[in-house]
């Protein structure tokens, strides 16, 4: 599923900065080919033309927004990071712990073109005066691990990493760290704790990682796709990057969109930021025969369900945010009319309950309760008041009430599913009228 469904001829350097070098046969782009196709030129350019301040400013101007799902401006994050001649040099951490349900975009980038990520990290390292980079990789991504490891060795041998990057006198290196399998490690401060060998609990902010991150030093955590966008910004400039999305969106650049679920061709496409859900769904060949679309998640399990009527909205951070959902990772999960919303929600909440780090009470003890209520509804053993209780819980798991964004993310599909599909939930209350659930998902399985 983690494959690009655009042919090489469609993917051109001017329009597809992330994927134009990828091969149709999915073999990785190795160092030589990467360099032949302009790879690492951005590093050469940055070392020759940029100071760390000017490089940060360039990325800030490009309005590159975080592709991990939160959409925070990468340049802004960099400019808030403590750095300077008299400051200790910290870390660049690539958040490659891609565990968002329904999301498989970073995997593609790392498996097929790891040098683009490495180049992006070197640039981020330069812009933030970091001394070391870490790629915090999802543990199950074995192929990505092997290819990154190889790419790091190749890049180091070619002088792009190490004590004296391409004779510039500047030193920077990158190490690969594979995670032990916790969704919460995608939260940047939990990721840092895990990297340090501690329990993967999120940290309180302030201090933000930019002030005091890994091992107490200034640390920038960026998503894989975010970092992969940096080389083309440096090479072609902020204006060029902005123009990539044309008038589709205020956000610049392209986005790796994708679809999973009961469509004909699940996969990935690099498209201008602000492409609509309908176009993406059409590229996926539409629903499988005999099925119609009931609902969709715009960007992972921690985003709110949307309806077919939302398909014509631009998929960017602000437009989707205005619906009450979030764009998240921009990888759509489609739900067919035969699928039970109660089961689907239960399945998602089961995941989020299991992946709670256990630090704060609402998340730790509230989510498992919601799972049990959903199971009861799923099997027709719900009781009067269960739905109201779920709604109350969804509110009490909201932003500000929990320690980090995990539970608020989990509350999004729950509250939106009840909001849009209340009748399906009501059918789960014992003695209620109506037919049993269509196509329930087995407990514990996807």
């Amino acid at each position, binding site marked *: 599923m983690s494959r690009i469904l655009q042919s090489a001829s469609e993917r051109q350097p001017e329009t597809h900065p992330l994927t134009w070098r990828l091969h149709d046969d999915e073999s990785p782009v190795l160092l030589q080919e990467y360099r032949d196709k302009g790879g690492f030129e951005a590093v050469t350019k940055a070392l020759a033309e940029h100071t760390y301040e000017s490089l940060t400013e360039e990325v800030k101007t490009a309005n590159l927004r975080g592709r991990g799902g939160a959409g925070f401006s990468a340049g802004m994050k960099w400019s808030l990071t403590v750095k300077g001649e008299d400051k200790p040099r910290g870390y660049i951490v690539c958040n490659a712990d891609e565990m968002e349900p329904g999301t498989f975009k970073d995997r593609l980038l790392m498996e097929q073109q790891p040098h683009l990520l490495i180049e992006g990290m070197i640039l981020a390292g330069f812009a933030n005066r970091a001394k070391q980079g870490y790629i915090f990789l999802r543990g199950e991504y074995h192929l990505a691990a092997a290819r990154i490891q190889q790419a790091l060795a190749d890049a180091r041998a070619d002088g792009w990493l190490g004590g004296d990057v391409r004779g510039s006198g500047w030193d920077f290196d990158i190490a690969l760290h594979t995670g032990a399998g916790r969704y919460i490690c995608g939260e940047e401060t939990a990721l840092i704790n895990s990297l340090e060998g501690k329990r993967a609990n999120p940290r309180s902010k*302030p201090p933000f990682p930019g002030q005091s991150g890994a091992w107490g030093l200034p640390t920038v955590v960026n998503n894989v796709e975010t970092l992969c966008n940096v080389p083309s910004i440096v090479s072609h400039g902020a204006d060029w990057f902005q123009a990539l999305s044309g008038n589709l969106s205020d956000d610049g650049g392209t986005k790796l969109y994708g679809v999973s679920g009961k469509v004909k061709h699940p996969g990935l496409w690099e498209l201008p930021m602000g492409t609509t859900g309908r176009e993406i769904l059409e590229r996926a060949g539409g629903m499988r025969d005999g099925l119609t679309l009931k609902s969709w998640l715009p960007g992972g399990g921690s985003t709110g369900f949307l309806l077919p009527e939302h398909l014509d909205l631009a998929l960017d951070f602000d437009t989707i945010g205005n619906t009450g959902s979030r764009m998240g990772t921009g990888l759509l999960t489609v739900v067919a009319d035969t699928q039970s919303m109660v089961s689907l929600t239960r399945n998602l909440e089961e995941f989020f309950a299991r992946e709670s780090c256990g630090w704060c009470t609402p998340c730790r003890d509230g989510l498992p309760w919601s799972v049990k209520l959903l199971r009861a509804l799923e099997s027709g053993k719900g009781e009067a008041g269960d739905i109201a209780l779920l709604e109350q819980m969804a509110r009490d798991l909201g932003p500000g009430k929990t320690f980090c964004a995990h539970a608020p993310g989990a509350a999004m599909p729950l509250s939106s599913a009840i909001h849009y599909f209340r009748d399906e939930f009501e059918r789960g209350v014992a003695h209620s009228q109506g037919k049993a659930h269509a196509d329930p998902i087995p407990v514990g399985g996807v």
Partner: protein
Amino acid sequence: MATIHVDGQDYEVEQSDNLLHACLSLGLDIPYFCWHPAMGSVGACRQCAVKQYKDADDDRGMLVMSCMAPVKDDAYISIDDEEAKTFRQTVIEWLMVNHPHDCPVCEEGGHCHLQDMTVMTGHDRRRYRFRKRTHRNQNLGPFIAHEMNRCITCYRCTRFYQDYAGGEDLGAFGAHDNIYFGRHQDGTLESEFSGNLTEVCPTGVFTDQTHSDHYTRKWDLQFAPSVCHQCASGCNISPGERYGDIRRIENRYNGDVNGYFLCDRGRFGYGYVNRYDRPTRPERRDRTQASKTATRETAGTLLEIDEALDRAADGLRDAGDIIGIGSPRASLESNHRLRELVGAGNFSTGIEAGELTRLQRMAELNRETGLATPSLREIEHCDAILVLGEDLLQSAARVALSVRQAVRAKGVAMSEARDVPGWNAEAVKTIAQDAGYPLYLATPEASKLDAISAGTWRAAPEEIARLGFAVAHALDPTAPGVDALDDATAALAERIADDLLAAERPLVIAGESLGSMAILEAAGSVARALHRRQKTQGALTLIRREANSVGLEMLGGESLDWALERLESGAAKGVVILENDLYVRLPAERVDRALTRASSVVVLDHQRTPTWARADIGLPAGTFAESDGTLVSLEGRAQRFYQVFDPSYLRPDTRIRESWRWLHALAATLARQPMETVLLDDLTEAVAQSAPVFAPLAQNAPEALFRIHGLKLAREPHRYSGRTAMRANLDVNEPRAPVDLDTPFAFSMEGYSGYREPRREVAFAWAPGWNSPQAWNKFQDEVGGHLRAGDPGVRLFPAPVVSGDYCEAIPAAVATRDDRWRVIELPRLFGGDEMSRRAAPIQARMAPEALALNADDAERLGIEAGMPVTLTLDDAAVTLPARLGTGLPCGVIGLPAGSAASLAARPADRGECWGRVSIGEPDSTGEARP
């Protein structure tokens, strides 16, 4: 200061606090779990939510966790807001999802913070209808019982155990709603402070196993304000009694001293009070018979009080010249009364001569070097620490815990420099990481504090002293230099001196545990040098061994050696020995000789010691639980401990009395005078008048007639039950409750037990709605601060007056000798104290006694751990299994302090001691050379 508006009321609060701290300090109730006044905020439990508004016009506001919200000037908040109240109820409901309904059988019930908070929020209906998650429990050793099903996952246990106390063997395991707090496998908790888990845990996950063994609800316990007698730190405790037994010891908050925390020796070492073999009635021993059978355990003939006093007086009168031997584990009042009885010229402190000389020297150094003696709280604010010779975790564990907080305070300072408040505990950890704090430890053996130190140095006592002198010289070149110092030591001394000079409040710690005058002199020289370098905010802590060592030194008197000499020479023929086992202080044959020569030996004690077994008349004394008096701690703090219960109320046969009362009666009998009533206040007053240094004692404690609203102070909670029935097995008539004429406390639930009237003497902390130890909030000027009436105790050390000069007597380097080993005593928390060693839980926790030697030495000699090794001295030989000491230097052998072996091997003056080592039992020939 800042003004905050809480539910329409305006309050002035500290700007640097968080809202929870500020509101609780104002006396407002907000429920909380993960926050702890000594451990700061982490925002985990989400229980303390309040509504915060942008300004006076904002009527929507948003929920914030008050523990994580800094105080802002002109902030509008609401505790009573409906959304906030509902959310807090919801949080409790979530916490209760897996919490069992076992309050009736839970040992936390009645002093449970979770119960209190549940009632406070009003959550009383369970909507959760599914299965609860369950856990398996662990055996955590003799001190702590474990019931994980009750856990509400507040993380306080690991935050205390790991972050606050430096323990490594208790952690959080698992994730989501399956978090487990325990060890990686069953086993005794290794921390010296594990007992605090019972008070830190807001519910019944970690409870007091020693209490469990004879359980009583907290509301059925009788308490008194007391002071721990198990070392010289002077921690405040609240022992709880039922049916004549101490059932548990709780921490008693003293903002200057122990704060919220005790060490495990102090908390779990009370068992000697309850021993069935304690003398409870006067005993007479026929001398010839005693010498024939010589069985020390044999009980003497039981006597009534009058007969015992008469016989004791007759014996002493016949003896003519009598001396008194006091004790550093008895109160000032008892020691003073003894001194009055025998005359000041005939009074011995009961302390061996070498130790007494060192105690006197320590007092001089505290007075003369110019550096003041810090309280434990002040230690926590020192910014560089040099420890010479003391393994603090073993010799004064609570001091070690304060040293650890000083190290942690570095992180707080770093955070505050970055505008992150010091109470934001996890953020402080993030920022501090393992930031180096200038803590230097020079001790013979490795300790758990090493991990947080900037430098450690393992050496024999003389070498430790030489390092100290070298530091003094590095600080001030006019201090004498040290000859033949190797480069590494010289460099270390320079480094230490630099760090001490860079600090605002450098602290030097040394003490008695290695019995080395040279170390004390070295510490004194460092202190002097710091003072001369204008480090006037610096501090000097000198660790004494016993609860009243400082008091006895102040009281004055001769050494124990002098006393024995007087008896041996026949200069004195009668002796009164107060709560002192002479056999733990000087060699047995010497004590035997002296006591045999004496024609009359009167012993007052609460334990059957070898000395008691040599008494012609033995008078049963009260322990700290059955008596009251004053102790002076190592920081010079005089503190009164109060009688917890009257032993004769439930056990009419018992004749246990306070030692000072016995001595008062004995004095009257000797003088053939009718006995006048004596009250504790009279004796305390007498001590106060006996010397200027004691003058502050007159104001130290409320006199017996002190009343609040006309009431005495209650020793028992107002829910105390069963009083009318608890004596029914003896007599259906309920006698009047015992009357306490000595203190303002009543042996009753009747009396004042509130918090509104400021008072320093608090038997148990309770306030309406606050049954757990968190009720101390209500007694404090601010949460975690000082008691509103001032912290208990009065400092007796006079203000330092600089005099004297550097010590010139610097010991020579220790030459490793082929045929001899430098023998030292290694202090130990469990087993090193004469009294707590008599408690079964402490015995279960004691490491097996062993001879510690350097691992390389052992390997060279073919000695393996556990192998029997004999240490031969001039006139003694002891055999113990070998232990490979961690870090112990070559050529040094360590004996466990307080063991029979170390008593046997100890030279008379506890001074420098050398011995030979052989493998196996004494007659084997395998002499081992280092």
